[in-house]
């Protein structure tokens, strides 16, 4: 079974792959627009890292921190979120920390590991509730954590060990890639 790396090597050897954006590639995007919102602070990033690592911890493979999830959040915050999303996200970080202070008398980062886990489990339950609108912000936090982790090099190659060729040699045969081209 080919994995992605051998596939790329094969394609490069054939001189037929276009892995890198060349001068004739896509038309130039418009300049990145700044929303005027300040970037994430080191304190905010530390909180993000601790929460993300709680969601996907280090085991026999790296966890969220080892896979660069905090940096992914920084990219999303600085270059992807719209201004209202930035404001809401920043407020949610403050709210997580405030709740830790209310419950345990100290900020999330200073809490004992068991207390941190208790908070995360409670937030996760709230985030998973589909019957409240707007959803608890932890749902989006968890979604971005999982996205940042499983699309990372660590997530793809070490954790999931993804294969590229849709398991042509697998007795289960190839399956669909999402549903984008079903119709």
């Amino acid at each position, binding site marked *: *079974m080919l994995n*992605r790396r051998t*596939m790329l090597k094969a*394609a490069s050897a*054939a001189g*037929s*792959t*276009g*892995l890198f*954006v*060349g001068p*004739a*590639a*896509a*038309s130039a*995007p*418009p300049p*990145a627009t700044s929303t005027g919102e300040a970037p994430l602070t080191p304190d905010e990033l530390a909180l993000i890292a601790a929460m993300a690592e709680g*969601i*996907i*911890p280090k*085991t026999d493979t790296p966890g969220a921190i080892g896979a660069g999830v905090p940096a992914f959040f920084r*990219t*999303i915050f600085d270059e*992807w*979120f*719209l201004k209202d999303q930035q404001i809401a996200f920043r407020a949610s970080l403050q709210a997580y920390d405030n709740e830790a202070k209310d419950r345990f008398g100290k900020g999330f980062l200073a809490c004992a590991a068991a207390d941190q886990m208790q908070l995360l489990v409670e937030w*996760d339950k709230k985030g*998973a509730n589909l019957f409240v609108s707007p959803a608890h912000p932890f749902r989006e936090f*968890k*979604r971005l954590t*999982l*996205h*940042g982790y*499983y*699309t*990372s*090099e660590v997530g*793809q190659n070490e*954790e*999931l*060990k*993804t*294969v*590229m*060729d*849709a*398991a042509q040699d*697998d007795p*289960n*045969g*190839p*399956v*669909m*890639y*999402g*549903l*984008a*081209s079903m*119709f």
Partner: protein
Amino acid sequence: MENDFDAIVVGSGISGGWAAKELTERGLRVLMLDRGRMVRHGEDYPTEHQAPYEMKFRGLGDNRRNQIEYPGRSPSGNEGSSHFFANMRDHPYTTAPDRPFKWTRGNQVGGKSLMWARQSYRYAPINFEENAIDGHGVDWPVRYSDIEPWYDRVEQFIGISGSVLDYPTAPGGRYFQPPMPMNPLERDMQARMAKAFPDRPLTIARLANLTQPIGEDRQPCHYCGACDRGCSTGSYFSTQSSTLPAAMATKRLTVMADSIATRILTDESGERATGVEVMDAKTREKRTYSAKIVFVCASALESVRLLLLSANEKHPRGLGNSSGLVGKYIMDHLLSDFAMTTVAGPPMPHLTGGRPGALWMPRYRNIRGEKREDYVRGFQCNAVVFNDDWQRGARTPGIGVDLKTKLRTTGDWHVLIGALCEMLPSLGNQVTLDTDVRDAWGQPVLRMDVAFGENDLAMRKAASDDMLTMMKAMGYKDVMMTPGRPIPGAQIHEMGGAVMGKDKRTSVLDGHNRCHDIPNLFVTDGAAMASSSQSNPSLTYMAFTARAAAFAAGEFKAGRL
């Protein structure tokens, strides 16, 4: 460069590429224009085979850029393919009040052939007869037997993998490559369908993706799963992989990218097209190119727009529009609600790719003497059995080691089936020029005035009911319906606007895709379709284009054009 050609082809996508190939192979010197940039095969597929971590937003797309380029609507394409889609900022259009329309375009050499969904079905014999039978739209000037040899020619040349069926709405397949495999749960679904409904054949989609090589430059599909980024192994049909190399090999083709056709020109009598006025998309300078034949293959609605923009003294309502029907009978398809359930199945490896198509079942309604009372015509079905990947983690509670362990294996399997419904040709569904709004090059845009009609919605409801009934009859439990609200244009099968017919008073084009009013002007893309059928239409555009080009070349050689 020279300014005079035997033929000019406006557009380089699925239809334009075929026009260029057929005309050059028959000896004509051809200029092919595209308003968008050059895309070189292989070299200009910058995201091909990129892993998610090689993309800045890991496949989530550029959210801020999308807000600018697609204000008020969802963007076209994804982070790996957005560079092949025309945005709304430079290419706006307007809609009639309360009549939304989604228009998706690919403005580059190759057009949407680079990112089409590649499902390739013929119109069935009945599709060419129903306009005459039930009186909707205008009677096709051709029948299936007229187009059949051209379907054969196209299927053989582009390469289609799929199953041959002995079924009245699934003709074709003499030159098919072996079908792609189905997974065990799909084979089980196929067997369940055969047992519950012996007269409804469920099988793998017919795809313009190869399972066998064609020559040296087109290799079988390697299942990387992201066709819409371009394919340097030529494993699916695109202009770049298929028709363009054939046309270039004749040394009679000139390709001009970044060249916007702004007007088709006619002589003083108004009875002959003499060439095309072209604006350089970068410098905005205009030049004129002359030819004895003009093929308009700009994609259905852009072709209509060009005819309307070409109005002159002799053709005050637009070229070929003595009937007043240019821009009328706009169609698309509409999806039914989907029926879906969860089934047990084996875990799978985590895939970065996958098979490029799903399952298909040809139209089974209103054929073989059945006559439904609630709607005329019919729908085809698509189905798939797929399994959940790590993204399910965001939808269910759980964190920590337990979550990580769970997501290491793939999740539940899901069975899904839905229908693609025919949309009737209706005079009230039209596009016109909106001179109040201009695109980035100062050209008036199109105003869409299109909505689904009573028959369309009645069929959709009946098809949705059929999906649920079939799932239950196949023995699936806990079937859920996923309701949708289709929008015209959203299936990206927009067609009509310059329909073929026998009578110049009731149609724009004749049986050879030639303007009734201007015999050396041809329109061969989706604009020409007199009905939408139940099937994905690109293969039919190719067949009509090849047929029209052969006819035009014959007339040219006989000195009649």
